[in-house]
């Protein structure tokens, strides 16, 4: 699904990613863990095509397509989705209208007509229920005045609506209480299938009790220094990150 080869990336002249290799197959869930400042969010931004970051070496392939030079919207059209760590507030655009605009933009890129209103409504109802989202919430301005938990739930709701082939969830667990965490995790699990893949970026093992990863990678100083299965997450939880630094 997604292959990253020897990826080096910089922002404002500072190299953050220093040679990442990652291979995520369809149907898999990978977790990327690591201390603050190790490059986790940078990796997410680079994959999604944030133009603030510059790839200086290596490549990213989605289903064999080289993403080099593609703008963020083209990557989305190919099936990449980033659940933001800090979703942006956009007053004046309701959640529903935003979703509709995004869905239709993706359909247009695939040569399809706009989604019929009834189909959209049905899908919204279904996915809102999955994530326990109140219909009042959908008419509010996008992320404006949302609590941390509401913002994250809204990210996963967008993911549910857009049905991406490859999703990166950047610290989706931060700001969630345990009940919200369960709802979000349950949503992600329901969306998971043999044709898509998810990368979960997290600081803590907590989320991984609910979204069980096939593989866990530890990122430190712009490199993956250790990979393993879900037991690695427990080990990190118990021992902290200090021992990881010695591996680097």
């Amino acid at each position, binding site marked *: 699904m997604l292959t990253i080869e020897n990826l080096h990336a910089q922002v404002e002249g500072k190299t953050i990613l220093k040679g990442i290799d990652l291979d995520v197959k369809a149907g898999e869930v990978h977790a990327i863990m690591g201390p603050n400042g190790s490059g986790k969010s940078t990796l997410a931004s680079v994959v999604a095509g944030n*133009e603030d970051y510059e790839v200086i070496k290596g490549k990213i392939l989605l289903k064999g397509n080289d993403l080099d030079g593609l703008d963020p919207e083209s990557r989305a059209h190919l099936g990449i989705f980033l659940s933001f760590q800090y979703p942006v507030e956009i007053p004046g655009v309701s959640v529903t209208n935003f979703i509709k605009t995004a869905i239709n933009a993706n359909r247009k890129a695939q040569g399809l007509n706009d989604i019929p209103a009834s189909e959209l409504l049905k899908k919204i109802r279904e996915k809102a229920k999955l994530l326990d989202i109140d219909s009042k919430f959908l008419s509010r301005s996008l992320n404006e005045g949302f609590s941390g938990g509401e913002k994250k739930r809204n990210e996963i709701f967008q993911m549910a609506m857009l049905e991406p082939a490859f999703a990166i969830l950047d610290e989706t667990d931060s700001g969630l209480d345990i009940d919200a965490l369960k709802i979000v995790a349950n949503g992600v699990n329901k969306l998971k299938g043999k044709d898509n893949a998810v990368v979960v970026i997290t600081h803590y093992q907590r989320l991984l009790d609910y979204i069980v990863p096939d593989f866990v990678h530890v990122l430190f100083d712009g490199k993956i220094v250790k990979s393993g299965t879900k037991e690695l997450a427990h080990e990190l939880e118990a021992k902290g990150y200090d021992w990881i630094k010695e591996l680097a």
Partner: protein
Amino acid sequence: MEFKEKLISSHLAFEEDLDLTDNVHQTRANALKIFEEKGFPTRKDELWKYTSLDALIREDYSLFPKSEANIELKDVKKYFLYDTDTYKVIFIDGVYSPFLSNTTHDGLDVCLMSAALSKPKYRDLINTYFNKIAPSDESLTALNTSYAKEGAFVYIPKKTVAEKPIEIIHFSSGDQDSLWLQPRNLIVIDKNSQVQIIERHQSLKQHPVVTNSVSEIYVHEDSFVDYYKLQNDLTSASLIDNTYIKQEKNSHASVHTFALGGKLIRNNLRFFHTGKHILSTLKGVTILEGKQHVDHSTMVHHSQPNCESHQDYKGIFSERSEGVFNGQILVDKIAQKTNAFQQNNNVLLDDKATVNSKPQLEIFADDVKCSHGCTIGQMDEEALFYLRSRGIPKKEAKALMTYAFANNVLESVQLPSLKKRINGQIARKLGVNLGFEL
């Protein structure tokens, strides 16, 4: 002859035609003297620093247009908010159009200023309110007063809710070469009453027209007024709008100004308070292009305790357009517990577009909450990336954000069909076809 001289020397001819009470005659004569003394404002005046009338008054204008324009309903219908179901006071080239209007004297008065100024039954109202809200020392208002003759007169008696909105529309037909119009509106809302008013100035053809309009609005205690100004005129039309609102205790007054088109627009909007627990709301959306120029000059004078005012103006400027915002908040020493907020946010879409934003707070009371904020910026790149990461192309994402930026001022518009119409106008101006109402 300079245009100022023409205005002064034509005044005698103007008054000759009128059969009016001595009282108003004297008011006009006094006002003319003030204008003669002060003349047109210049950029040396602090409040006119960024807006010059020089180019406008260098031209010559007809002051007494003939009422010969042959305008049919189908020509102007699209400018009406509703086909039916509103009171309408419609003027063409400054002359009342009975055919297009829908006035009333049934339970409330929605009629003509010329009638109010000349009929004995309105004498008391005219003596109490006419030219009593507008300060006498503003030269453009004095100029309007000296020629005050026609416009809308609205009187809402006590405990009356106007069932339908009132539309006041001034058309210029383009049949006259160039035109100088001076409509005068007086709106009195007695105790415990409510009304919604929409005002619009619209040219039907490209031709030079300058409108120097004065509206006086008196809001008695416990009353509500929502006033909407739709400024989406042709690029040959200029507007100087002078609106003065005096509020009594427990009253709410809001003015929304949608400045979407015109050559030069200057909005002088002034609020005065005479009692406690007053709420004043001033909101504006400005979207300009080409070489258009809009100047919002607001003032809220808090002279009583426990009152509140909110100002929120959004501007979007492309090409070489120019925006000015000068927002005054005056809080007298006696006006404790005042809450006064002011916000002016602007987005510049092109390098050549300019904005001058100037908050002006003069606060003499110590127990108040006052805030102001102004921003002038480009598009938020982070938000743009967020939208694009969902597959929305850059161009649409930009338009959507610009639309959303302007659109949140619309939330307080109380008339759904007006909201829908302005939504549509804004979307069209920004070249977005979202296919839904935000």
